[in-house]
């Protein structure tokens, strides 16, 4: 198994990008990554295109359409789907491709256009709800905020987690989003604003939820030989974990945890030979505020049930025990589902290179990304080292 490094990253601004098509967003991220890696399109040997849902793109088999627009035919390409963890899964596969020795340079690109002209929020919510179990649960009209609200009620009941603690996650992520020029929301919010925002799915309010975003992000991976030749700042992927959980809620054992996260974290830490306390900076999947609190616990940043306390004590701010989502997270940076994992990798690469500007975590050496598909059906944890 060869060592593999990230040698280039690129991403669009996230947001409602009404002026850009799926392919144009992908092109923009791809171009930035090539320039970052100092490579040309001809150097890319293999491609993994991550897109969450055909419905969003309207284009069936949308990965092929992106590939064409990048001008990369007839090279290898596969479209990867792991719900909201699609581009982390693509990075995992690009890693396998290079680690195995099949190729030296591989591209993992994620993109999603969730806001398409004429599509209403109620339609998007309905469509996304079909990511829950179609056979037994969909005819109760579930929503994604609802799935996480179900986790939140259980977490609050078991561990005494409060709505204030949930809101504190949003406040932190908006605080950092305000420092990120690529974030969907670049403004701070107060705890009061969050707690006064409209109820979406009790106990989750508007500010507990990430926005519906468009965007693209990508990473170029290279083998050790190539990485050392072309890059002064290769960022090594040293640990990879992939866990899964049931789609149907009734097949879960516990609603205050994401079983896929626990499994993925175990695999990744073991492979990277590190412990949670060794991680200097992390991007975790905060599609909803409760998700970030569960992530703290499931990733081992604190004991189970103490996630609420961790944010209350500001331990996940820069300067705290473990800075989390200092790019704004999904909550403020945005969550164009297919692009989200690659955008986490983008942030961690910038952090480990020391290029994160105002939101730089000092001397970050080991980084972690945690990307959850749907309500835990797919979970990728990657560990990076500079």
């Amino acid at each position, binding site marked *: 198994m060869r060592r593999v490094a990230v040698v280039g990253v690129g991403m669009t601004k996230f947001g409602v990008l009404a002026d850009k098509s799926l392919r144009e967003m992908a092109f923009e991220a791809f171009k930035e990554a090539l320039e970052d890696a100092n490579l040309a399109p001809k150097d890319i040997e293999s491609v993994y295109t991550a897109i969450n849902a055909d419905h969003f793109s309207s284009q069936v088999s949308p990965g092929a359409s992106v590939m064409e627009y990048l001008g990369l035919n007839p090279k290898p390409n596969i479209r990867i789907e792991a719900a909201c963890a699609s581009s982390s899964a693509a990075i995992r596969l690009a890693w396998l491709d290079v680690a195995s020795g099949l190729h030296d340079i591989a591209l993992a690109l994620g993109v999603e256009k969730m806001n398409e002209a004429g599509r209403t929020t*109620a339609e998007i919510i309905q469509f996304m709800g079909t990511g829950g179990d*179609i056979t037994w649960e*969909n005819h109760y009209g579930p*929503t994604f905020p609802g799935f996480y609200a179900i986790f939140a009620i259980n977490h609050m009941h078991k561990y005494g987690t409060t709505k204030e603690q949930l809101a504190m996650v949003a406040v932190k992520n908006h605080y950092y989003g305000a420092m990120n020029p690529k974030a969907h929301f670049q403004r701070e919010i107060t705890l009061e604003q969050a707690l006064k925002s409209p109820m979406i799915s009790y106990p*989750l309010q508007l500010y507990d939820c990430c926005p519906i975003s468009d965007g693209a992000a990508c990473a170029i991976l290279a083998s050790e030989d190539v990485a050392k030749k072309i890059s002064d700042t290769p960022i090594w992927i040293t640990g990879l974990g992939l866990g899964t959980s049931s789609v149907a809620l*009734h097949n879960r054992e516990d609603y205050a945890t994401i079983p896929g996260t626990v499994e993925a974290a175990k695999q990744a830490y073991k492979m990277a030979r590190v412990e949670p306390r060794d991680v200097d900076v992390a991007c975790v999947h905060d599609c909803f505020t409760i998700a970030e609190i569960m992530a703290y616990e499931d990733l081992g940043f604190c004991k189970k049930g103490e996630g609420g306390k961790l944010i209350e004590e500001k331990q996940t701010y820069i300067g705290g025990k473990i800075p989390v989502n200092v790019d704004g997270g999904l909550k403020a940076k945005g969550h164009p589902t297919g692009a989200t994992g690659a955008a986490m990798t983008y942030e961690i690469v910038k952090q480990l290179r020391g290029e994160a500007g105002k939101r730089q975590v000092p001397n970050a050496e080991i980084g972690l990304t945690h990307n959850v598909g749907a309500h835990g059906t797919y979970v990728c944890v990657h560990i990076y080292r500079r």
Partner: protein
Amino acid sequence: MAVTQFSFDVRVIVPPHTKLKKFFEELEKGKIMGTKCKKCGKLYFPPQADCNKCLSSDMDWVEIKGTGKLITYTVTHVAPKAYTNIAPYVIGVAQLDEGPKVTAWVRDIKPEEIKVNMKVKLVTEKCEDGITRYILKPEG
């Protein structure tokens, strides 16, 4: 601006095509059925045609009593398009005394009176949209 538009069915299918037809027939009659693996005895509710514990597909139908307690829930205020007219509604997860868990609407109780661990019972109900569902109601 040239935009053509057409709709393609995305259905919520409570499977009309599967080996679980009997479940839906009994549901209409007010009975809630699960399946039990003849080989290893594992009880499946909602029913499955196959047992992933022992890989057998030889199942018995068994009636579900449906008593249990509520583990967690949510009150859906912002609903999907097809459900906006009935919002807010409560989706809960219950632990049945018989072993399996179940996800369903919690009805006949005000959302603010719902408590984790409250006793509930699974019953059938012909809902306002004409679909017969199993739902959770408070008990005792």
